[in-house]
């Protein structure tokens, strides 16, 4: 479904991503872990079309991606951002946020689709005409997920979708994402610094360090401790220590 080959992204003279290659099958999930500044979010932003200054080759569903994308691309590929406090327009109601993609893509039946989307992300119908500041962090992230689903995409790019939420809400959102994937046959690319979150959702994952993907392994290998690169081992040890603490 998605293939990325030799992706390079430069910011000025700094090369933030140095030749990253991976592939994701249809209906599957791929996770990218790494510390802050390892270039993992940059990969996602290049894939989503937010950053058009990259070299390499990326294809989605067999179509090669150009630096600037057409409207059809944005219908098929959507993104959920890290911070639900920043990703919703402060002066727009949930209803307005959800109807925007429908208006842009000329999709009819707005009322039914919005009610359905709210039900799908388990938000009460009463949340429909609220402003973001009247919602909790978890509810906001659900709105952001619902917005990403409005145009019925095939690929969802998840940029640390749970890291701004507290732990109990994190699990809810992760389960919601897993349910949605089952129901809609979505393909996920998820970025996180949290190994547990990635391993929960993604059967395959890549570890990034300093703009390079230093290791690719399956979630099972990770759980069993079959890691090859020292950085992966470090991250794994850190995450188990945190869990025990």
């Amino acid at each position, binding site marked *: 479904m998605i293939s990325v080959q030799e992706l390079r992204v430069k910011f000025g003279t700094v090369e933030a991503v140095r030749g990253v290659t991976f592939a994701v099958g249809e209906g599957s999930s791929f996770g990218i872990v790494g510390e802050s500044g390892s270039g993992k979010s940059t990969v996602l932003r290049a894939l*989503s*079309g*937010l950053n058009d200054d990259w070299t390499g080759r990326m294809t989605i569903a067999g179509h090669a991606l150009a630096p600037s*994308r*057409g*409207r059809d*691309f*944005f*219908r098929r590929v*959507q*993104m959920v*951002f*890290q*911070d639900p406090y*920043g*990703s*919703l*327009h*402060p*002066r*727009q*109601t949930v*209803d*307005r946020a959800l109807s*925007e*993609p429908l208006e*842009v*893509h000329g999709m009819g039946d707005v009322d039914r689709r919005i009610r359905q989307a709210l039900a799908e992300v388990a938000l009460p119908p*009463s*949340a429909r*005409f*609220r*402003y973001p500041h*009247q919602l909790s962090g978890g509810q906001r992230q659900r709105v*952001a997920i619902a*917005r990403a689903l409005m*145009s019925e995409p095939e690929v969802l790019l998840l940029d640390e979708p749970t890291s701004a939420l507290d732990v109990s809400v994190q699990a809810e959102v992760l389960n919601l994402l897993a349910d949605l994937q089952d129901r809609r046959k979505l393909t996920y690319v998820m970025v996180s610094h949290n190994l547990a979150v990635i391993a929960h959702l993604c059967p395959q994952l890549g570890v990034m360090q300093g703009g390079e993907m230093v290791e690719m392994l399956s979630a099972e290998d990770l759980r069993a401790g079959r890691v090859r690169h020292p950085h992966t081992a470090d991250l794994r040890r850190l995450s188990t220590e945190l869990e025990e603490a």
Partner: protein
Amino acid sequence: MSDVVKRAWLLSDAPTSRSQAAWGRRYRLWCDFSSNGLAMTGLVIVVLLVLCAVAAPLLAPYDPTLQELANRLSVPTAAHWLGTDELGRDVLSRLLFGARVTLGMVIAVVVTVAPFGLAVGCVAGYYGGWADTILMRVTDVFLAFPRLILALAFVAAIHPGVTSAVIAIALTTWPPYARLARAETLTIRSADFIAAVRLTGASSGRIILRHIAPLCLGSLIVRVTLDMSAIILFAASLGFLGMGAQPPSPEWGTMIATARRFFLDQWWVPLMPGLAIFVASLAFNLLGDGLRDVLDPKQR
């Protein structure tokens, strides 16, 4: 619907329609605003001034151009509450009709300048690059001239009158709005919620118009209200210098200009339009200050 029910409807935590949500938000802003005494004073005075201007023909005791040469420069009396000017015209009537000219000029300037500045600023800020460079350098050129000199030169080049005064004031007041809108746009454009809109595939025009401009509007409205007093003074200065409204049109600045010869002996004649300018400017300033507290809490 009783008041209690209405209030509950407006403050509902779970609005049932877009318009209820929007009115609820406005009502909360109004509650904030109305708790500010000084701002309410400003609002009441502004509303009264506008009502006076609209109802001038009904309120004015005399025709503003009616001359009564036997009764020149009279002190305030029961017949002429604010006295008469050098041609025996009733000052109160002229002030009331003058409110139409002065406030009309202010409104005309604001209506042309605010949308223009907003558009220039948002476009420059959103696109960046060469569009930003060109638009902002043009803005700088206009900012670099002393305002009054530029306006005077412009009016003198066409011909003195209300219309050219409005154009001249508009020409010299738009750059700060463009700068303000650009600064706001720069902070908004990299926000995640704008990235999310870009990812829906929306066109740049749609993003600017529907997502960025509404957010710039708050600080722009505040700035405009605060500037209104400056525009009143500007219009009055142009009138005073003979470049604005022409006699016998009763513009407040022009009235002071024609009455300045009597400044020492019949001081009340120039005093009355001066007071009108003072009250109007003060009211707009109070109003703008209150609006800033409500619409732009971060600038407090």
